[in-house]
């Protein structure tokens, strides 16, 4: 089942709105090839975007209004979802989504090509095609339109080596205007626990061009992961800790050079499979307190999610609930 949440594109690109979700594709496991540089084989470090993701997944999502999602699997390869959103702040609407998973199987849990598409009742389309071109190269094309206008179109190529991953993303290339964004990522394993990486974003519009670079380091311990990203746009540090099989904690620090603001958030996730319960809570330095409770109502394939977010300083409150069938 695809989880609906905000999927962040690379910094510099427009982040994709909720509802545009990608089925989680676990990284392919490569057989340990002993042709490593220092003798012992270093593991592939994963992708650049995934480094902060473990900590971010601990935090609850802000929910507003009512959402009903009906997922129906039509076959092993094809899945369809209907989403009805009723909301007080934004527009209510209906969204139809389809996921096709192809027949070329590269691992136990993944097959390619993967095609995901979503269409809104205002005819806004989000579509993604992910394909594994060779055993080490994966490509992705994503398109997003707002009614009939193309808002985002990007193409992405990722190469996974033995102990490194590099990716190049070309965003909104417009040959006629001479504008576009190029993002290059590189992540290298230094030791089984340590990985370093860098990112370069180059954007160009008629009359202006600029580049932003950042460096990233990630350390994976026994039951924790610490990641730090430093760049021209600011600093971002996350720490993820798995206390026991029920409790996971995350601490996130974010500082932005542009707005000269810093924020610290603390989040936790409590997993009680015996009670069919998943609870995520977060406390923020902006005096925001939020929580999401997900409960599986078990004899039926129903799951109910209740969310509440309270801003103590501004005294505003938002709550919502999701019902997912199937």
């Amino acid at each position, binding site marked *: 089942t695809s989880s609906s949440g905000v999927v962040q594109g690379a910094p510099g690109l427009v982040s994709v709105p909720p509802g545009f979700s990608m089925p989680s594709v676990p990284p392919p496991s490569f057989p340990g090839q002993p042709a490593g540089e220092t003798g012992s084989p270093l593991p592939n470090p994963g992708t650049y975007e995934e480094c902060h993701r473990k900590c971010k997944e601990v935090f609850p999502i802000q929910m507003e209004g009512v959402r009903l999602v009906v997922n129906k699997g039509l076959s092993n390869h094809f899945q369809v979802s209907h989403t009805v959103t009723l909301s007080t702040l934004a527009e209510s609407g209906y969204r139809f989504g389809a996921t096709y998973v192809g027949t070329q199987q590269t691992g136990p849990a993944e097959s390619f090509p993967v095609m995901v598409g979503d269409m809104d009742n205002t005819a806004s389309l989000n579509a993604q095609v992910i394909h594994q071109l060779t055993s080490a190269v994966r490509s992705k094309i994503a398109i997003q339109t707002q009614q009939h206008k193309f808002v985002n179109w990007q193409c992405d190529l990722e190469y996974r080596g033995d102990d490194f991953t590099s990716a190049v993303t070309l965003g909104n290339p417009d040959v006629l205007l001479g504008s576009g964004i190029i993002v290059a990522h590189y992540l290298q394993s230094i030791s089984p626990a340590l990985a370093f990486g860098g990112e370069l974003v180059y954007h160009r519009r008629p009359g202006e061009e600029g580049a932003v670079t950042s460096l990233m380091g990630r350390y994976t311990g026994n039951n924790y992961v610490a990641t730090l990203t430093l760049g021209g746009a600011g600093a971002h540090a996350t720490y993820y800790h798995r206390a026991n099989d029920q409790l996971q904690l995350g601490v996130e620090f974010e500082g932005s050079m542009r707005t000269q603001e810093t924020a610290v958030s603390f989040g936790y996730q*409590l997993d*009680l499979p*015996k*009670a069919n*319960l998943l*609870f995520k*809570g977060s*406390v923020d330095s902006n005096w925001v*307190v*939020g*929580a999401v*409770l997900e*409960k599986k109502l078990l004899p039926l394939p129903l799951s109910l999610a*209740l969310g*509440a977010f*309270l801003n*103590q300083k501004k005294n505003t409150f938002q709550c919502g609930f999701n019902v997912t069938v199937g």
Partner: protein
Amino acid sequence: MAGIEELSPAVGPVDTRPPEGEIDEDEDEELDESFIERLWGLTEMFPDTLRSAAEVTVSSSFTMAKKLYSFSRAALWVGTTSFMILVLPVVFETERLQLEQQQLQQQRQILLGPNAGMSGGMPGMMPPAPVKM
């Protein structure tokens, strides 16, 4: 009477003033000071430093009490709502789970005999000391 005339020439024409016999009593009633003001006047006998120290202490303790009151109101509200959002649902659900498990145990006890409430629900015919294989 002549002294009074000298000290307060602006009192008014002589014929409006009360007769001399009543002046002493009326002075007590017509004085501009109220009771509180007369008591306050008594404090003027203390030295200035003591008076200003007392005034600062009293006013700052009033301010502190007001601030403490408003802080405790805000803290109580923030604490209650944050507890409600962050902790209460989990507490409800775990209590519900415990109650359900207790109920199941009780049902098993009723169904299978008094020693069957233990984990595993073994039938009540086994001796209390299990034999380890």
